[in-house]
């Protein structure tokens, strides 16, 4: 259908058609941000304290998300939503999707604590953190920020962080921005499509 009309329409009309009608079947549930951010690249440490880079998570879909473990409200809500999406995937591609949970609170989130928190959401959730320099480099790369409030009398402090979830395809290209109002089924549908058209 679209090809047929291709020859009969002016370029301006064609463009309009391409943007609306023909692309209807190309719609994602999440926001398409292809090309708007650089490829996945980072230097961080995993929960075992080993240095890792994007190469350790290559050739798979990666969902990048920032948070901290002293967050019992919004961070686990998002992680549970993403983990449920992964469980919704056909078994054959489930292990080709990873959720990279990057703690921007390395002072409190080294080692065991991060592993325990992230691991509870399933094997596909990877807890990562890094030095301030490493975290700054990564957050700047994706134009997000984080910060610390002043500590209270008990030494407790709040951390503000981006609520964005970035999806990268198996080539490491940024593709989607996942909003928190999507259902696990919708996210799973997007992941499946991403897996098919990388």
């Amino acid at each position, binding site marked *: 259908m679209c090809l047929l009309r291709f020859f009969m329409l002016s370029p301006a009309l064609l463009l309009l058609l391409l943007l609306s009608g023909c692309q209807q079947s190309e719609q994602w549930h999440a926001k398409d941000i292809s090309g708007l951010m650089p490829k996945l690249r980072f230097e961080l440490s995993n929960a075992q304290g080993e240095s890792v880079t994007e190469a350790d998570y290559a050739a798979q879909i990666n969902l990048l998300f920032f948070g901290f473990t002293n967050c*019992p*409200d*919004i961070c686990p809500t998002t992680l549970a939503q993403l983990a449920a999406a992964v469980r919704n995937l056909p078994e054959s591609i489930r292990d080709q999707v990873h959720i990279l949970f990057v703690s921007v609170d390395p002072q409190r989130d080294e080692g065991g604590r991060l592993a325990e928190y992230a691991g509870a959401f399933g094997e596909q959730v990877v807890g990562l953190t890094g030095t301030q320099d490493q975290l700054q480099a990564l957050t700047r790369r994706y134009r997000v920020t984080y910060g610390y409030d002043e500590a*209270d009398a*008990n030494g407790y402090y709040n951390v503000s962080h981006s609520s964005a979830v970035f999806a990268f395809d198996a080539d490491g290209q940024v593709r989607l921005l996942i909003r928190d109002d999507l259902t696990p089924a919708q996210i799973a549908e997007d992941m499946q499509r991403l897996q098919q058209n990388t």
Partner: protein
Amino acid sequence: MKKITLALLTALLIAGGVLWIWTTTAPEALVIDQARIRLVAGSGPQGGYFSLHNRTSTAVTLQSASSPAFARVMLHQTRIRDGQSEMQSLQDGVTVAPGESIEFVPGGMHLMLMQALQPLQVGDSVPVVLEFAGQDQQVQSFTHQFVVVPLTP
């Protein structure tokens, strides 16, 4: 005959009316329901949630909370602004007008339960003390049982 029926009907209506008034105004109380703690793995803080219905005739303010099962409890609110999410202390408490309800839900207001003194398990019942101030600034405490629930239903 007709008069008697009419009188009977009127009497019934009045009695019904009185009964209606009695049932709607009698339970003068603060009602808490759906009290739960969503279990998060690890030794970090837990989030407590509930609904609060103010069925009294005056405004009340939830000022603070505590629990024998946690070192400290804070009143918190998660806010997402310009794609940035942050937690804030509700330092002035939360005021509920008469007849109004508020909800502590994930992604909004929550009890920030710090340092569980014993490991929690799904199904546990944990007492939480909620302190309210009324119009006369008198503080009233209510202890309510919060059920530990899994993160995802």
